[in-house]
């Protein structure tokens, strides 16, 4: 167990070190594959996202955006990542099946499994940014965000990687699932939403100021009887908005939602001073 995680009998608490939220139209995702990363974020290997699923492209961009917004330079090599996409790989999956129906196994791309499975968003971010903490895909369905929150918190608190100093939670979903024709070509232009949170252990006072964010994040399981299994109220957009308001110290000081299995996720303001760290070599544009 990570000693600095705030733990009670049935609750886990963390701080949100950084966050970002993006919405990108399907038509714009193609150019995002090759677009330069935000200033202050790491460089990706050339053409790294060429075969990536749309959820991965948006997930990568939102992590880079959150990294660029981080007030310090986190030790990303010691981070893990939990990515919770909702129905990833559907557009590629539809094209693959349509082509398979016409031409058989020879038409199936070798990239489908590594790039369009549930683990692919987490795998791509982990590889691109050189993360050595664990990486996991979670959810895959309509309740992906709630599932991702449960897994990310548990992963950071578990003893599986004692060197892990932070876990990213990345959630992605279409605002409306794209309609596809019989060849797998999209008929609509929905927006893919992406949320990235960096969860870090609650720092102890003698840690030298490793707390860099003013927002806490707590998960607590209720005792039986369990409540109904719920997606966080309002979904990803409402969740992202609540985090943003808490981080800005706005009127919303606390926000709680039910999570799968009768638990509760509570986000609340926790004002603590930010402490800068030296820039790491991969930080572009750093002083």
């Amino acid at each position, binding site marked *: 167990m990570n000693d600095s995680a705030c733990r009670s009998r049935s609750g886990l608490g963390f701080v949100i070190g950084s966050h970002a939220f993006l919405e990108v139209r399907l038509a714009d995702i193609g150019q995002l594959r090759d677009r330069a990363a935000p200033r202050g974020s790491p460089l990706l290997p050339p053409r790294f996202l060429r075969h990536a699923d749309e959820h991965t492209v948006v997930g990568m961009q939102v992590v880079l955006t959150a990294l660029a917004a981080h007030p310090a330079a986190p030790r990303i090599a010691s981070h893990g990542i939990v990515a919770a996409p909702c129905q990833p790989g559907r557009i590629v999956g539809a094209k693959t099946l349509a082509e398979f129906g016409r031409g058989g196994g020879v038409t199936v791309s070798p990239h489908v*499994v590594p790039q369009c499975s549930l683990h692919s968003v987490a795998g791509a971010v982990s590889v691109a940014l050189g993360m050595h903490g664990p990486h996991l895909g979670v959810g895959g369905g309509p309740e992906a965000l709630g599932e991702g929150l449960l897994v990310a918190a548990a992963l950071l608190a578990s003893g599986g990687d004692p060197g892990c100093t932070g876990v990213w939670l990345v959630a992605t979903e279409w605002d409306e699932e794209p309609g596809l024709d019989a060849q797998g070509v999209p008929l609509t232009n929905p927006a893919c939403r992406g949320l990235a949170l960096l969860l870090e252990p609650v720092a102890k006072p003698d840690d030298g100021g490793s707390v860099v964010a003013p927002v806490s994040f707590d998960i607590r399981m209720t005792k039986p009887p369990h409540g109904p299994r719920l997606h966080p109220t309002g979904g990803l957009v409402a969740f992202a908005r609540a985090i943003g308001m808490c981080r800005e110290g706005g009127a919303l000081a606390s926000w709680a939602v039910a999570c799968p299995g009768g638990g509760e996720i509570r986000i609340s303001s926790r004002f603590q001073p930010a402490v800068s760290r030296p820039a790491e070599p991969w930080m572009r544009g750093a002083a």
Partner: protein
Amino acid sequence: MDAGGGMSGLKAQSRPEREPVMITGMAAVSPLGNTCEAIADNLFAGRSGVTVVEADPTARTPRQFVAAVAGVGAPAGIDPADFAQLNRLEQMCLAPAACALADARFERGGRPRLGLVLGVGAEHLKTWELDYLAGGSLVFEPRRDPSLVHRLASRLGIDGPAVTVAAACASSGYALALARSWLESGWVDACLAGGCDILSPTSLAAFYNLRALSRRDDDPTKASRPFDRGRDGFVMGEGGAFFVLEQRDKAVARGARLRGELAGVGMSSDGAHMVIPSSDPVQAARAISAALTDAGVSPAEVDYVNAHAAGTPVGDVAEANAIRLALSGATDGVPVSSTKSMSGHLVSGAAAFEALVCLAAIDRQAVPPTLNLDEPDPACPLDHVPHVARSHPVEVALSNSFGFGGSNLCLVLRRAA
């Protein structure tokens, strides 16, 4: 430990005292049988579950080598007519999940706060494919259906947290790791965890086109040859396993049978490549070392290593180097085998199935063999168990699982005390 690559953490460290997490129920479906006894019998007899199927015209080869599950029947408590309506992935998950719960023998009406963690890597791709091949059009329709894990939870009467996790070939092992974490956090009193996978035409084609599958076309039972000089890829299989996990005090209090202890978990990522395992063994070794530390076990106390070794030229060497690095001087006395030589590679279900293999090794005090290990690759210098099982005292067993994207997981299984 230095997550950035340092090996300073490889020494065993003290760990905080905590209640051990025990396995109190288990079940599997696999190419080697659908009961724990049949699976163990086949493993220790060195029987291969790999067969040849005459492939249809869409397949990449006219004769396909696979390790298939012969058939799965409706478990007790599930209406056979309803079961027959489920797709194959749901059947292959529901049957062992229900059997594992039954094996845990909770008293009627006395079931504790129960969670479910399902390790499946490509649920939606498989579901869409099964539907498409049956003439459906789900994949083209703008809809969102409930995930398999929530349908399973509903059928099994599980009302606690339920999640799906995926880490490619390590998926079902991460399910066990996460369940253990939930128990230690007090979120659940017991947790059903495991995973399963199924063969499908497009996944076979994708792995073939990726050049990950063996291209041998003579004897199917000779195709899967981990650590052998002549290995040329893995044989795809299907199946998996599920376990009920509980903390020891609660399990003992209700009189549960203790089948083994999930004593340690270690995890890491290569951060190197989307498909190819890193040639640098440090991160994989770090996962093994972390699992040992988590279990409070030194390398010298390890009695058996069930290797991930799928039979790929690069992956087997990378794992051998990681095992040697993590176990250091203890390597020579620790038997290592890869049971994928018999079961094929169960992909998402592999890690849970191989945890069950480790429990069988502890139960039978023997190490299952690596079939087809005619000429061990000198680049994989380990204490192999070729061809036939070895009688050997096993109190502590390691199970490695490594997945696409450089996902590394090691579980430590220990005899129940």
